């Protein structure tokens, strides 16, 4: 019964979604009597989608083996957290989550948005329904999560052990919130284009959604990076893997959009450009969904194995992006020019930010899709990895970060570059000191890491400079948000540069009692023990670690064997201190009874994720600050 309830709710939501689209379009074209129905329909549609998703979670919690999806992805012996997370740890469930988040976001827009012109809002909801309808159809016709399995088997097949990790359980939902927030921004852009209403009001309505989705994407990327770091056991924190790029590209576009929408909201400039970026940002989240969900990444062959799904998402992608670009081409002429500004001004710096972000986005996109195109066209297989991305996107990112330091110190509309040099004299001094320090006290570390550290110091100083000589209690919350986010970029950059320049690595075959030095630590190999978990067994290495005269402590890296499905994973053991991490991995044993041990000392590597967290927290402060100010001015208008 649970499965049938879920499926029925899904069909009803689909019907309401179609209704929302039709009523919305008719209302925009003059049928005012239908306009009042659009908001309630959108709210109920979101509720029904949420009910459907809750039913799926219930099925997973009960391990209902009469449902095909549960059989293929769950197991009655699994810890409950992974039964719960298993609901979206598979293709069908994650697509249902996607649609649910999309519909609930539509409900929220319908329920709360009051500032925008009613006509534009209804056009926005119609656009949101158009996106939703495609994904409902995809679920119902190509990936039904509620399909029954007859006869019901005795036991389920289990969840991929790599995915059995608390961090990863909440990783996909975080990214989906980000992706879907961009779809709302896109719908606002389409709505504003349809009703010729691109201006500051539209930007203010769209901004919280862009900010919100950007916060989730930042959190998702940061958490995903840390997950890959400790779970894969390779010691790296970013691999330029297509799946990682699928989350990075929407983030790059959202970052550009976030800054241009601020220009539009406060200065009423960059109108056509902001709308274009909204289209690009949503396209990137569609491409991200396509890359991850179509199976095309395992191999273009996997795509051909199940062509219905891949082709369906590809068709949706072409339809929405093509439709939006067409609408943009037809209507961009009606978007009036915004206010002017000079090249040296905050607007000018933000335009440079946007262009660089777009260029980096283009580079990542080309590098990610190139192997797919080449293999499809010629059958030749190739891979594009870190050497390509680091050498092309790396230098551009450093320029971008330098400009980021200048932007907040510039005045809107017009400024003088001589004044600017005065304002950045302190940051430049700090950078010069950092450079001198590196030159005199540290052995040579390569150009990019040197630039990274020097820049991080200067940018860190410059990002707190907007608070200089200001009344700190009267400074608005969103200014603090910007300062913390920019400082977070500097902190993360310092972590990346330090990790790539100063990491020490030791790889040994060791016997019990032997000691190894890495960084400030001495690691003694004590031996190995067998251990068992709820659904795995493991060989656990016993390491006794000391640092200087400090107390010794134990680290236990494991090689785990999972029973269902049979898989082996390496669990790294990590010791964190204020100045970095000691990262240990246990390898195989050889015929002489020696064990392979891999040790890394990574100074200040933790700054990478600390910076990521600061960026997201800065975003959150901005969001809260903006929403509060908008509400206050709305109240003032209502009473004045």
């Amino acid at each position, binding site marked *: 019964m649970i499965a049938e309830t879920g499926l029925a709710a899904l069909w009803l939501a689909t019907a309401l979604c179609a209704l929302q689209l039709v009523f919305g379009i008719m209302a925009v074209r003059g049928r005012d009597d239908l306009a009042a129905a659009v908001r309630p329909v959108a709210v109920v549609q979101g509720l029904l989608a949420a009910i459907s998703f809750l039913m799926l979670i219930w099925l997973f919690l009960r391990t209902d083996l009469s449902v095909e999806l549960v059989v293929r992805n769950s197991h009655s012996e699994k810890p409950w957290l992974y039964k719960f997370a298993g609901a979206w740890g598979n293709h069908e469930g994650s697509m249902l989550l996607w649609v649910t988040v999309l519909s609930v976001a539509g409900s929220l827009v319908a329920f709360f948005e009051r500032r925008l012109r009613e006509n534009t809002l209804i056009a926005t909801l119609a656009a949101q329904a158009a996106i939703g309808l495609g994904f409902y159809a995809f679920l119902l016709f190509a990936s039904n999560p509620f399909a029954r399995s007859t006869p019901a088997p005795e036991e389920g097949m289990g969840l991929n052990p790599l995915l059995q990790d608390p961090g990863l359980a909440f990783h996909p939902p975080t990214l989906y919130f980000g992706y879907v927030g961009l779809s709302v921004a896109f719908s606002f852009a389409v709505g504003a284009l349809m009703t010729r209403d691109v201006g500051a009001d539209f930007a203010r309505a769209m901004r919280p959604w862009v900010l919100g989705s950007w916060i989730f994407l930042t959190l998702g990327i940061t958490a995903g990076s840390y997950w890959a770091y400790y779970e894969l056991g390779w010691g790296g924190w970013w691999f330029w893997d297509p799946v990682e790029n699928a989350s990075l590209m929407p983030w790059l576009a959202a970052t550009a959009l976030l800054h241009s929408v601020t220009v539009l909201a406060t200065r009423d400039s960059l109108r056509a450009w902001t709308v274009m970026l909204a289209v690009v940002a949503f396209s990137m989240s569609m491409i991200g969904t396509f890359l991850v969900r179509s199976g095309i990444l395992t191999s273009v062959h996997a795509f051909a194995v199940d062509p219905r799904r891949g082709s369906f998402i590809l068709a949706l992608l072409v339809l929405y992006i093509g439709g939006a670009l067409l609408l943009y081409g037809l209507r961009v002429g009606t978007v009036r020019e915004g206010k002017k500004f000079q090249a040296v001004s905050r607007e000018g710096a933000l335009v440079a930010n946007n262009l660089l972000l777009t260029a980096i986005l283009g580079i990542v996109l080309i590098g990610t899709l190139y192997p797919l195109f080449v293999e499809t066209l010629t059958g030749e297989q190739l891979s594009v990895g870190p*050497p390509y991305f680091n050498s092309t996107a790396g230098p551009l990112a450093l320029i971008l970060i330098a400009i980021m330091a200048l932007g907040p110190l510039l005045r809107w509309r017009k400024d003088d570059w001589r004044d600017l040099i005065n304002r950045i004299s302190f940051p430049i001094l700090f950078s010069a000191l950092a450079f001198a320090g590196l030159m005199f006290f540290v052995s040579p570390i390569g150009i990019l890491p040197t630039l990274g550290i020097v820049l991080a110091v200067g940018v860190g100083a410059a990002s707190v400079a907007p608070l200089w000589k200001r009344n700190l209690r009267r400074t608005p919350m969103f200014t603090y948000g910007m300062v913390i986010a920019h400082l977070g970029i500097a902190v993360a950059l310092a972590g990346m540069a330090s990790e790539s320049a100063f990491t020490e690595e030791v*790889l040994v075959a060791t016997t019990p009692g032997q000691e190894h030095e890495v960084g400030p630590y001495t690691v003694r190999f004590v031996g190995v023990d067998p251990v068992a978990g709820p659904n795995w067994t493991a060989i656990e290495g016993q390491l006794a670690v000391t640092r200087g005269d400090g107390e010794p402590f134990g680290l236990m890296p494991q090689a785990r064997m999972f029973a269902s499905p*049979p898989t082996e994973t390496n669990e790294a053991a990590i010791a964190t201190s204020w100045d970095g991490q000691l990262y240990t991995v246990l390898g195989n044993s050889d015929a002489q009874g020696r064990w392979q041990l891999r040790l890394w000392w990574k100074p200040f590597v933790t700054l990478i994720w600390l910076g990521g967290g600061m960026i997201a927290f800065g975003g959150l402060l901005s969001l809260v600050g903006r929403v509060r100010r908008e509400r206050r001015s709305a109240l003032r208008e209502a009473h004045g």
Partner: protein
Amino acid sequence: MKAKHQRLTLAVIAVVAVIGAGFLALAGLRDNAALFRTPAEIAVEPVPPGQSIRLGGMVAEGSIEHLPDGVTITFIVEDGEATVPVRFSGITPDLFQENSGVVAEGAFDANGVFIADNILAKHDENYMPPPMEDMASEATAS
């Protein structure tokens, strides 16, 4: 400068930036994209030392040797037509064994030994690099 001209200037700069990024990307791809090669392909068309490629094939039976340092191994990758000697320092993936498929990332040294930086294991017991699958199915067909 009028607002209209400003918009035109911005549009031109944007187009130039995107085209510039495209050129940068293509130049980067020409230098850095790693091709997938099998021993047979390398025998016909040798890969110059230092150029990154991915080498795919089967680990030859009885070819894995552990060097005395305990962390370096050598083995031979074959595909039924040709062989390539490989050296690798590090922890091999759990599914790495003789007579099974392997993908190694790295480059040849001056002596024609393939120095692997990384040995790929998809975390799937049924994984095979796609060309190997073709090979296996050809083998069963013939």
